[in-house]
């Protein structure tokens, strides 16, 4: 761990999820330095029915956040596909008109449009862009004047420190919440079952394709489309059915098994000092689809933790395990590439 003076110089920004106006206010009130949100359409990667903001609600949210000294970042981080690209360009125009503090983009065309039409608009590179090498990140910086990169969750802290030394922009890293397929921005598993794309329609496992069934013996099945993704024993914690976290039968195995990933949540509380020392500028909490109660609990806990670390005090986030998926947590690839 670096000495306290170094940490104080580099106090990171806490970037928090806001799926609804109430969640935005909860995050702001709980100490978020910045909140990120999306418009209620396919232009962002959490395009769930009932979630997100209209331009009017976003404007109100910006006013509330600004009144409390909190920045607002707008995720326009799905991939614009012809002939619908105008939807994404309109989102960029809306962001510029409302004066958001930054737009989080993934698509080269959208980044190009923003850089050309709204050069004053600060751009962050979404995790969906999957930029994980200094060369890729420098390209986005030089071509589109990207000021911050959200790193994919495939890098160790040591690798992040090495990248930090070779890029001209800030680094944002996920520290808590859902952790999905490691090839962010390139996963197409949901397409095969639901016909919609995480990357182009903005939604993985849309709720209209999800079906739970409670069985007489107390177990619960979770289906996505026409496929049973998991079956939970009585008393076992259930998860949201995504293909990557499903439990499958195989002729060569006696029991169903997690073929891709297990339903666990990322929790990097114990690595926060190392991340800060590695040059991470912003710590991101995942969970725009989660409740305001969840947002309040996680943001408050991380606010205290970051402040404690910067002040050289001990911190404890063990209570957050209750809010993790399946009641289980991991440090993912941040600790080791052999995390499974």
């Amino acid at each position, binding site marked *: 761990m670096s000495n306290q003076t170094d940490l104080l110089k580099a106090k990171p920004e806490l970037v928090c999820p806001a*799926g*609804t*106006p*109430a*969640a935005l*206010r909860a995050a702001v009130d709980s100490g978020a330095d910045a909140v990120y949100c999306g418009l209620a359409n396919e232009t962002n990667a959490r395009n*769930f*029915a*009932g*979630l997100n903001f*209209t331009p009017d609600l976003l404007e109100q949210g910006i006013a509330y956040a600004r009144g409390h000294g909190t920045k607002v970042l707008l995720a326009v981080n799905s991939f614009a596909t012809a002939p619908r690209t105008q939807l994404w360009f309109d989102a960029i125009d809306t962001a510029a008109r409302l004066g958001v503090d930054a737009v989080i983009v993934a698509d080269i065309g959208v980044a190009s449009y923003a850089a050309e039409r709204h050069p004053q608009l600060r751009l962050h590179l979404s995790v969906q862009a999957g930029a994980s090498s200094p060369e890729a990140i420098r390209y986005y910086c030089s071509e589109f004047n990207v000021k911050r990169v959200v790193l994919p969750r495939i890098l160790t802290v040591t690798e992040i420190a090495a990248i930090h030394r070779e890029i001209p922009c800030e680094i944002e890293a996920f520290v808590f919440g859902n952790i999905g397929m490691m090839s962010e921005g390139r996963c197409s598993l949901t397409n095969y079952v639901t016909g919609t794309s995480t990357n182009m329609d903005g939604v993985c496992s*849309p*709720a*209209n394709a*999800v*079906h*739970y*069934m*409670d069985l007489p013996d107390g177990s*619960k099945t979770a289906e996505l489309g026409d496929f049973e993704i998991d079956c*939970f024993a009585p*008393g*076992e*914690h*259930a*998860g*949201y059915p995504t293909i990557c976290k499903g439990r499958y039968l195989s002729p060569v195995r006696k029991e169903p098994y997690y073929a891709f990933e297990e339903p666990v949540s990322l929790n990097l509380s114990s690595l926060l000092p190392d991340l800060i020392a590695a040059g991470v500028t912003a710590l991101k909490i995942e969970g725009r689809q*989660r*409740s*305001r*109660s*969840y947002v309040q*609990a996680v943001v408050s806990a991380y606010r205290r933790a970051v402040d404690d670390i910067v002040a050289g005090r001990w911190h404890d986030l063990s209570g957050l395990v*209750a*809010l993790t*998926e*399946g*009641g289980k947590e991991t440090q993912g690839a941040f600790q080791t590439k052999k995390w499974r």
Partner: protein
Amino acid sequence: MAEENLKDLKLPVVIGKLLAPLPLFPLQFILSRMVKGITQRRPEFFARLGPHIGSSYALDVTELPFVLLLKPNPQKPEMTAHRRSEKIASDASISGPFMDLFKVLDGRGDSDAMFFSGNIKVSGNTEAAVCLRYALDDLEGSVIEDLLHMGGPVLMPAHLLLQRLRRLEIQT
């Protein structure tokens, strides 16, 4: 857990048993007033329902002797009580213990965590249930407080019950 807390946790069960022999007619009147009052005070509720604004929801508080049927139609919002013996049709069904559903309506509960832990059960149209969850979650403050304020001083005892339930929530 302290013995007093155990007694308190049984409170919804006791209330359920007391309500069981009573006719539903007075309750229907109260429910109708409640849902109309809330939706008038909180018109933003409908926007979050998105494509499921015309859906119907069975709300099953497991300790109660009846099931609630919510139809959040903006022109004519309805909530009615039905005996468990009745077969009611709904697009989505949400069931759970009183204390968990109380926390959600009081703006203090993480309904996702309750669902994943198996406390709250959802069946039928998952997207409709999720939209209702977002709609309730986006209502600032507590829906229960709203209901009590609508009732005025007549509901003063209910305010005291609310405080007691909140203390219980913290202890449990």
